[in-house]
């Protein structure tokens, strides 16, 4: 009997909790419908111990097929109470995740909780990993800036482009458009090697009181800066200086969404039918317009898809899964997600992809 007691004691001493990630299992039903394309980690940034949130945006893939894609680098956004830190991370030759310092700091002071203050858009990869950070000032649109950062592959570091833009980096968006202020910005993949950035801009001075409107001087610019047709005056119920804006070059559909008193309102118009109409079905924050023409929302941890008329096609819990971006693999557009996991030596990120065409069949 004493031997058994000894054995029991030994078992208790050497016994420990088994390896297990509850979050990974919670996200499993959704993850199983996607292709897991890689893992990055463990990543330990300077602020990861005090992080309130961690995101991973993989470097835009250059693979010709999803089967040949591997995640070897990307951008980590560490969110603390008042600051976001952008880091470039990569796998070294031994397959060990490394953080390429220095980290770039972006303030969160003055952020409107309904909108992202800093929008991180990973741009197509050539010889560098590229990311554009739009800082959309919610109260003073003329102060909104854009900043391009590049990391030499494979190991960085993350740095300003050479030579830097003539108007500085970060560059006031207003400088790009003759003094007009941007109130919304969109990244949209054009191909495997090119992207469009579309902005919703208003002329200065813009209105600040009740009745402030997107009027005839408001227009949309493509990445090339060509002006798209303006829209008729649209009277808004109260001051709004910040929009979520999306433009579909295939259909010429424009979408502008704003939040007022906690309610999201989404307008849609086209150059051919320029009078904005409200999409009553879209009641959540829209995070992306997909190449399929569908609107994607991840508000509240629920993945929603709306068709181009605002009809909800899908609503599934994400259980910790985070939307990264849409990108072309070869000629097929995929939607990328990442799943962060806190672990003993930092953070790990699983990266998943699903063909854009299959998004509506997720469940």
């Amino acid at each position: 009997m004493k031997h058994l007691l000894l054995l029991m004691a030994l078992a208790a001493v050497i016994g420990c909790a088994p390896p297990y990630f509850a979050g990974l299992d919670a996200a499993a039903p959704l993850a199983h419908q996607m292709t897991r394309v890689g893992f990055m980690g463990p990543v330990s940034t300077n602020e990861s111990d005090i992080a309130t949130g961690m995101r991973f945006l993989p470097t835009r893939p250059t693979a010709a097929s999803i089967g040949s894609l591997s995640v070897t680098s990307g951008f980590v956004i560490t969110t603390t109470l008042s600051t976001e830190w952008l880091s470039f991370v990569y796998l070294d030759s031994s397959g060990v995740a490394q953080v390429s310092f220095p980290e770039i700091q972006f303030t969160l002071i003055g952020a409107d909780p309904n909108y992202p203050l800093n929008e991180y858009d990973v741009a197509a990869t050539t010889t560098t990993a590229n990311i554009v950070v739009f800082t959309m000032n919610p109260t003073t649109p003329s102060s909104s800036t854009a900043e391009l950062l590049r990391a030499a592959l494979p190991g960085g570091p993350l740095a300003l482009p050479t030579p830097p833009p003539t108007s500085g980096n970060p560059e006031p968006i207003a400088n790009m458009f003759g003094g007009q202020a941007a109130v919304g910005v969109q990244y949209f993949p054009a191909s495997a090697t090119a992207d469009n950035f579309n902005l919703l801009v208003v002329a200065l001075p813009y209105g600040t009181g009740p009745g402030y409107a997107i009027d005839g001087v408001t227009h949309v610019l493509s990445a090339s800066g060509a002006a798209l047709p303006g829209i008729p005056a649209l009277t808004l119920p109260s001051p709004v200086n910040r929009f979520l804006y999306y433009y579909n070059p295939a259909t010429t559909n424009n979408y502008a969404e704003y939040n007022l008193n906690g309610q999201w309102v989404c307008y849609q118009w086209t150059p051919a039918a320029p009078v904005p109409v409200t999409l009553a079905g879209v009641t959540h924050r829209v995070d992306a317009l997909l190449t399929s023409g569908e609107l994607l929302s991840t508000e509240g941890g629920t993945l929603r898809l709306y068709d181009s008329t605002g009809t909800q096609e899908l609503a599934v819990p994400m259980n910790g899964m985070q939307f990264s971006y849409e990108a072309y693999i070869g000629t097929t557009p995929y939607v990328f997600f990442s799943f962060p996991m806190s672990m003993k030596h930092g953070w790990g990120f699983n990266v998943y992809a699903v063909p854009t065409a299959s998004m509506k069949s997720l469940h």
Partner: protein
Amino acid sequence: MVVGASARTLSAAAAAAVFCAALVLPCCLSAQDQAAAQKTPRRILVSVEKTLFSGLSADDLGVLQRSFLTSLSIADGAPSPVAYGQKAFPSRPADRDKAARAVGADAWLLLVVSGSKARPVLRVESSDLIYETHTLGFTVNRREPFPLMDINREEWGDVIPLVVKAYPAMDPEVYSGGPPAAATLIVRALPGTVISGLSPKPVTVGKDGAASVDPPSPAPYTLRATLAGYVPSTVSFYLDGQKEIAVTQVRVPWLLFDLVFLDGLYPGVSATLASSPFPGFLRLGFTTFRFGIAVNQDQFFSSLPLSQFTLLAGIYLSPEDKPTRWYVGAGPVLRVSIPPGGSFTVDELLPWGVQLVGGVEFSLVPHLRLFVEHAPSGYFTPQPALFNAYYGNDVTIPYFLLGSAVALDPFEVRIGLRWVL
């Protein structure tokens, strides 16, 4: 505290000594001795032991036992010794009687050496099963050390004459009032039962539930009854005029339930379906990590929404009627979880694995066994990079990565109670 000699060594040596003595003894018999040999010698179970602080090693004890058994074997009129072959002689007189009967002896003797090597003290206890008397109980204080390295020089003049005197060879009539003669004995058991121990060859119980044997009587016997699907039965008795003996047979249990604790004392249950007559079994187990004690963790209790199912195919290596039974087995493990905010799912990190099991169970009381299992497990992981990142560069017991897709836990241990229905 009494410590037994190395059982295997001693019993083999003792058997050799008795065998040699049996060869030598007939040559030494005089005519008078041969007349005396007509009598039936007694058969005595002998155990030689030492106390913890006697200063004797196990080897020393072996030498002493061989010396004592040899001396007793060649002593005129002495009972035939049978060496006790287990680790420690039973402490209860009733168990000692039982042990003696089990080997066909009609007496037992326990010789315990204490004191020191230089001034040993011998304590002798002995009991006669025929007359049901405690025949010997005395202590000898030696004033000189054992000549341990020379058995021939060892003297037992202060013990063996008393043993010979206590157990003289008996006239056959003394046993039961008649000479030993073959007596018909009916053994009643289930049809098909094989009875061994009463005749040179095992006999099989017929369809009428009886088997007839003709063993010499009077004499002590131990029979063993085996029948497929039934627990083997062992019965020790002293045959002295009985006409029949009935064997009680119990069906091999086909269903067992376990209450088990895994590793850091995570609870679980399992059900075993035993096959018969093949000593194999199939066991379905369920262990939850929802409530656990993990003494080496940051907190005393551990709770994970994780569970695992195990399916084990095994085989018992020891007979059903043994108080200690060994078994081995192997089978798959499936890990499932109901994570917060999620639904029931197969675990992502280590979804399934294979376990090898080696276990031993001890009968505590009828229908209840205590068991201990060592279950080294290998888990397949579809995400080895994540698993590796989980542990980093630590050497973390018990899990470690083997190859590119197997996480090994070589230390998994299960302890529990097994209820035999």
